[in-house]
């Protein structure tokens, strides 16, 4: 629902900038209200602000006047019908407004109109010229541009002749228009109508409704622009709050998705985790979610991040919704992390509050305020899941969206932790459903194996960087956080002692295998030696035989030659012809 409003706003703004000659407006100077109304209240016309008791109508009026003087140099007139001047001054002092001073400087005129039915007797015709005279006098004496009538409806209580009243009110509002003053008229909410006495009939240029709702014992103030003639306006209900700085309305998201991005990387504080995130850690200005079940070390991981940021000399703000600062410091000391020096140096500031202390919007505004004062470069919100207690999940989501947007617009690296309940079937789902707005999501989970409970960590997603897809074992000891490889084998992921056992087993296996191999090697050597010896013996034998045979061969050849010589000699001696000699020779060779 809130998502949809954002592009609408942007379209609207574009359209407005095209033909800016729309209705002249009178900026209120109230944070957020001018954004919703596209520049302020209709200039020179009355605006009706209605709502139930204690919704902040009067405060809105007073701030409109005070800011009119201090920011736009427009003097104003406050005519109260209910609150005594002393009370107005006192009440607005608590918001830091110096009404006294403004009155003394003739920038503000305060007129209290007392209407007491018991003191007034009506006989015959009358009109409300008295109020006109008073207003006119006040406006003229200051040159006022702004008027607040709070709450003119009191006249209906004090005076009985309703027909006269109605006619006079109509005349009054027309007169205010003629005077050209920008006016706020407050009215008590009626049953089924915007105001109890139907003031909306007379003031129809702009109607703003304030609401103060209590849901589950947590109150949230809301503002809605019911109508705004001749101008576009945000139509949603916008949460607002009244604190020591006055009124502030929080548009769901005042900025589009156009914030600058940094490609600078900052350490997570844990070396191995940096390695898992592409070797460098988070992006500056990104939003990081660490989710996990109870006791998986979310806060510890957050504290390491804080420590790393402080070491870099960057300011860090830690919003704790579960633990007190002292408790966090003590607990982190137990894992070898001392955050105290950073606090003392002013680099680290804790802000602990119970989530139920006030409504979501107040939390948001308080965070805005503190961030603006402290100007941190990194922020930790631990944990966001606790905020669910203070509102519906839609509200929490929209609030976190705005928070993330806010941090991004300021280039603040934000680390959120979220507790996922054990009953969840899937851990990869945060209760608040904020995962989609996070850039990096680390999941811590319990791995229960072999009667042991160990922690595992993995990177579920990390936009814009190559990251590890491995599950790592996450150890917290006296010396801090350690991330180790887990054993991944045929039996699944093994952690801690099982991993150690498995590793020992593997080591033993490896050793036996090595021994076996050595033995085999030796056997091979022996075999080779034996065979080589055999070869040598055979060669020797062969050589002996060869020598023998060559000798015999030589003797034989010599004998054959001798035989031929002898034959020739014999033939020569017998004088035999060559034929016989040739035949004899042939027969010998064929044999």
């Amino acid at each position: 629902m809130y998502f949809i409003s954002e592009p609408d706003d942007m379209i609207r703004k574009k359209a407005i900038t095209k033909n800016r000659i729309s209705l002249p407006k009178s900026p209120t100077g109230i944070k957020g209200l001018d954004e919703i109304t596209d520049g302020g209240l209709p200039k020179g016309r009355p605006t009706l602000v209605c709502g139930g008791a204690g919704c902040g109508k009067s405060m809105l009026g007073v701030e409109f006047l005070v800011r009119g003087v201090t920011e736009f140099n427009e003097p104003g007139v406050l005519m109260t019908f209910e609150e005594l001047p002393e009370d107005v001054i006192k009440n607005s002092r608590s918001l830091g407004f110096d009404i006294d001073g403004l009155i003394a400087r003739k920038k503000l005129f305060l007129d209290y109109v007392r209407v007491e039915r018991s003191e007034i007797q009506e006989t015959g015709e009358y009109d409300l010229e008295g109020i006109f005279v008073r207003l006119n006098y006040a406006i003229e004496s200051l040159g006022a541009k702004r008027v607040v009538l709070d709450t003119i409806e009191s006249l209906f209580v004090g005076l009985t002749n309703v027909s006269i009243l109605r006619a006079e009110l109509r005349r009054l509002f027309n007169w205010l228009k003629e005077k050209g003053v920008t006016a706020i008229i407050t009215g008590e909410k009626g049953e089924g109508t915007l105001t109890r006495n139907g003031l909306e009939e007379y003031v129809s240029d702009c109607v703003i409704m304030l609401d103060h709702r209590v849901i589950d014992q947590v109150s949230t103030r809301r503002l809605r622009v019911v109508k705004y003639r001749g101008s576009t306006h945000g139509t949603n209900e916008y949460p607002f709050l009244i604190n020591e700085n006055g009124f502030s309305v929080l548009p769901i998201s005042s900025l589009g998705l156009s914030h600058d991005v940094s490609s600078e990387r900052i350490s997570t504080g844990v070396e191995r985790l940096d390695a898992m995130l592409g070797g460098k850690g988070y992006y500056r200005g990104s939003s990081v979610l660490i989710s996990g079940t109870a006791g998986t070390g979310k806060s510890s991981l957050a504290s390491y991040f804080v420590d790393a940021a402080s070491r870099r000399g960057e300011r860090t703000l830690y919003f704790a919704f579960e633990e007190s600062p002292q408790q966090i410091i003590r607990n982190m000391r137990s894992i070898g992390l001392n955050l105290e020096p950073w606090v003392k140096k002013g680099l680290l500031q804790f802000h602990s509050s119970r989530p139920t202390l006030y409504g979501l919007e107040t939390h948001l505004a308080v965070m805005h305020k503190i961030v603006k004062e402290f100007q941190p470069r990194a922020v930790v919100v631990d944990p966001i899941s606790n905020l669910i207690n203070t509102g519906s999940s839609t509200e929490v989501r929209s609030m976190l969206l705005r928070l993330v947007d806010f941090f991004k617009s300021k280039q603040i690296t934000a680390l959120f932790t979220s507790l996922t309940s054990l009953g969840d079937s899937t851990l990869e789902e945060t209760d608040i459903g904020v995962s989609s707005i996070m850039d990096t999501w680390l999941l811590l989970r319990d791995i229960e194996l072999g009667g042991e409970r160990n922690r595992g960590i993995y990177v579920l997603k990390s936009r814009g960087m190559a990251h590890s897809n491995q599950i790592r074992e996450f150890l917290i000891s006296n010396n801090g956080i350690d991330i180790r490889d887990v054993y991944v084998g045929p039996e699944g992921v093994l952690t801690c002692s099982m991993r150690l056992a498995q590793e020992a087993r593997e080591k033993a296996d490896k050793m036996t295998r090595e021994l076996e191999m050595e033995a085999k090697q030796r056997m091979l050597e022996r075999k080779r030696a034996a065979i080589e010896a055999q070869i040598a013996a055979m060669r020797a034998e062969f050589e002996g035989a060869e020598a023998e045979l060559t000798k015999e061969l030589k003797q034989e050849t010599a004998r054959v030659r001798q035989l031929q010589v002898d034959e020739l000699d014999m033939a020569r001696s017998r004088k035999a012809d060559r034929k016989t000699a040739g035949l004899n020779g042939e027969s010998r060779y064929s044999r």
Partner: protein
Amino acid sequence: MKAKNKQAAGKARENGSSRKPVKRRDPDAHYDLRLYVAGQTPKSLAAFANLKNLCDLHLTGKYKIEVIDLISKPQRAREDQIIAIPTLVRRLPEPVKKIIGDLCDTQKTLIGLDLSEAGRDGTDD
């Protein structure tokens, strides 16, 4: 306890009786009246005429009417908490009473001025 109750009862009686003497004293009291108008509008003129008649009839010689025109003295409207015009203020005798309107209803005006008894006397005459 009983004594206290008696005292309380006595006080109540005193209070009850004290109211009457005020009304009885009314005829002798001096009436300081102020009429607030804004210009010479028909309503203002009517109011003044009605008031004058009434005072002449019921408060002969015991009243003073001051007419304040808010057109010339606008700051008086704030000082005297004036909302409606015309407004008649009875400043004396105390307590201060306010009557708004053109005073055309004499009976109501008399009640407003705490002169209703005198009014009855008047009708008796």
